[in-house]
């Protein structure tokens, strides 16, 4: 067993977990934050994307112990307050960027990360770039058309 301590969505959290506990299992099973999903077992689908110290990470590919001391943000924590929505969340709704909703949290976490990275680097996040950046996130419902639109719209709203 290992003691892990991290800040999740702004709250200090701590628990004793088996050494091999994945970050995603810690988030889902220990913290009961079930918005982070598991869609595969090969780090391909991106349903489990969270932010660790401000960077998008596939939570199925990281041990909880490796996030010791980290600031973790999940889909439940992206909005400024519990009555608010993040502009990217709004954009997904307004552009019908989701259907079954299973990949959506990972898509939104990936989207906000790519927008911040491009902004920081002063690069343009055009449609081609969005599609390339989504390489690690699979959606089976939308055909990506409206996800790409939503991210472009969300990016402009985050500006």
């Amino acid at each position, binding site marked *: 067993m290992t003691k892990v301590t991290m800040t999740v969505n702004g709250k200090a959290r701590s628990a004793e977990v088996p050494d091999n506990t994945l970050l995603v299992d810690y988030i889902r099973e220990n913290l009961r934050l*079930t918005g982070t999903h598991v869609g595969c077992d090969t780090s391909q*689908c991106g349903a489990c994307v969270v932010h660790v110290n401000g960077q998008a990470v596939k939570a199925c590919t990281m041990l909880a112990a490796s996030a010791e001391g980290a600031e973790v943000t999940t889909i439940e924590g992206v909005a400024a307050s519990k009555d608010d929505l993040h502009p990217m969340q709004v954009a997904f709704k307004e552009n019908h960027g989701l259907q*079954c*909703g299973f990949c959506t*949290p990972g898509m939104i976490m990936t989207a906000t990360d790519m927008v911040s990275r491009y902004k920081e680097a002063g690069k343009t996040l055009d449609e081609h770039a969005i599609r390339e950046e989504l390489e690690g996130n699979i959606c*089976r419902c939308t055909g990506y058309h409206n996800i790409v639109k939503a991210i472009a719209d969300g990016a402009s709203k985050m500006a």
Partner: protein
Amino acid sequence: MTDQGIGARVLRKEDKRFITGKGKYTDDIVQPNQAYAAFVRSPHAHANVKSIDTSAAEAMDGVEAVLNGHQLTGDGIGNIICGWGITSKDGSPMNMGAWSALATDKVRYVGDAVAVVIADSKAQAQAAAEAVMVDYEILPATSNVLASMKEGAPQIHENAPGNLIFDWEIGNKDETDAALASAHHTTTMEITNNRLSPNPMEPRSAVATFDESEDHYTLYTTSQNPHVARLVLSAFYNVAPEHKLRVIAPDVGGGFGAKIYIYPEEIVCLWASMKTNRSVKWTSTRSEAFLTDAHGRDHVSTATMGFDADNNIVGFKINTKANLGAYMSLFSSSVPTYLYATLLSGQYNIANVYCDVQTYYTNTVPVDAYRGAGRPEAAYLIERMMETAARELGVDPGELRRQNFVREFPHQTPVIMAYDSGDFAGNLDQAKAAADVAGFSARKEEAARRGKLRGLGYSNYIEACGIAPSAAVGSLGAGVGLWESAEVRVNPVGTIEILTGSHSHGQGHETTFAQLVSERFDLPTDNIQIVHGDTDKVQFGMGTYGSRSGAVGMSAISKALDKVEAKVKKIAAHVLEASEDDIVIEGGEVKVKGTDKAMGWHEVGLSAYTAHNLPEGMEPGLKEGAFYDPTNFTFPAGCYICEVEVDPQTGVTEIVQFTASDDFGTIINPMIVEGQVHGGIAQGIGQAMLEHAVYDDDGQLLSGSYMDYCMPRADDVPNYTVSHHSTTCPGNPLGMKGCGEAGAIGSPPAVINAITDAIGNNNLSMPATPSRVWAALQQVSAAQAAE
């Protein structure tokens, strides 16, 4: 009038919980005292099970029980069945092989479960499952129909000699043969429809709870049809009587057909919960999903189409061999028969059609309905044939289609279906204009200057949805009726609950069904709640598949709304002392036309429940139910045009434009319909260019993860140009045809027709990967060099 009625682009009510991470999927459910199941699965495609040693596993930490198939069948749990009986040409019934949820003496595909471990944690269950020692006697295996049908092939089920399940036919053989014999031109092709894995993003999951004090079971499961699951689990698998079993399908993360069926894991979790007196949870890994979710397609066909001297089609003859896997899944038999061959007349007026279909067992996971279910196979066959015939005849492929279109309705085809409506030329014209087909040759020249090969391909698909009149499908072998039910509850404060037997797993029913009510009673959709997916709340329902929730599910709601409307008018007429015929419902009020006399909508609700002043003899309350049985199939149709550029150096194909013109009849919410088409086209492009579920000759699955099975990603697909040219469906009260599968049905032939046009070689199979396209280009170069 409310602006949230039929035809409005209303944003989805259900989105809030999904975008905030508050959706409740089955794996998110936690029950008190929950244990975890891990399955011991066969690593062999075909083997006798000689013994199972569970002693080491049983001794491990946290292990509650290790259970096997002999215990399961010993407790009277029934075999898994196929619910659609097919009769062979010679009158004999199909050869359904026994399928136990846990194999007893023999395993028949890699992933076939032989035992289950129930333990305190998922990790303990998995570790113990690996410690179960199974002694297998490995048998030779077959993994495709061509191997299964060979003489001397391994025999998979004793009651299916030669692995043949059935040999079925439809249409007029002698007339079709005669028409082809006298044809001026015939086109013959061998066409393979590649095997696919459905891959909804949420893996299957089940949480079963046995309550000993009530002898009652609750099952949370990833189902497209929880009532059908309860019926089958009770009536056939003897897990529990229906009134002692509650099935809940909460938020379900995509289905695409794969979540129609009742799988071994659901049966075993329920049974194991009773055996251990604990809640039992199982969630599939993606690797398990590839091994055990029913696959789709996998047809090998030969087809000949004949034309007269004026290029009119005179006959169409098809032979299809279909792989149904190791066992017959729930609707597996209907897919390569009544959902496939009945659409082989396409959009065309063909006097003579004949198709015969042989289905075989193989040592692979069962094959059943996947988005489109039989209709994609039919559309691919016909539309590849039409494009090829046009090339052989030297005529424009769009015009060859146009000349053969069915133009008068109703139109009786030679293969059962009676098309009720459509304007196929209208869809063709709309798609051609949107795709700027007139400008194609200039674009092709421009691409050539950049060293790219540009091609254009059509697909004029027709499919059948809203399945279907219960008596009709019953006469064709279905074990169920395919009606739908609904209940409308108007509360005393005037808010409304709609209980529906349809199930939403991405389709947005909570929004579109509310729009239907909003349209009828002029109320905001916020006042309307849709209830689905729980057998304790909704009395019965047939679920969602085959694009039936609009044409059938909403028709049932519409019927129930008729009854509510009639009662509301009676109450208002009585209270307002007017004639029922003069009562109108609008703007949140129930009014007497042409007067200022009115009641608030909520006042009518309250009147119904206080019952202080109701018409003589009227029962209190405001709640009505309806069952709707369709009068016919519905026939969505359309024209898809795909334009590609191929890099001849690498064989890499880029879809540069994809244009759709669909006829779905009445559209409730264009935003949601367009989303359905986008997703369907992406799956069709996936089939055409990327996806292939591949077994080696020994029955080992080679494409068992997202590293090996190529799912369409954002940079594999284009933006889609989607438009509608609709005719109203005369068969249901709303005029709806269905939109859920069309994209997946119509797109594969458009893509392959475009690529083969670009490369000048028609010899190309799906998926058209860069290596296959490059190889096809080399054939062209070699042929040119030889000339």
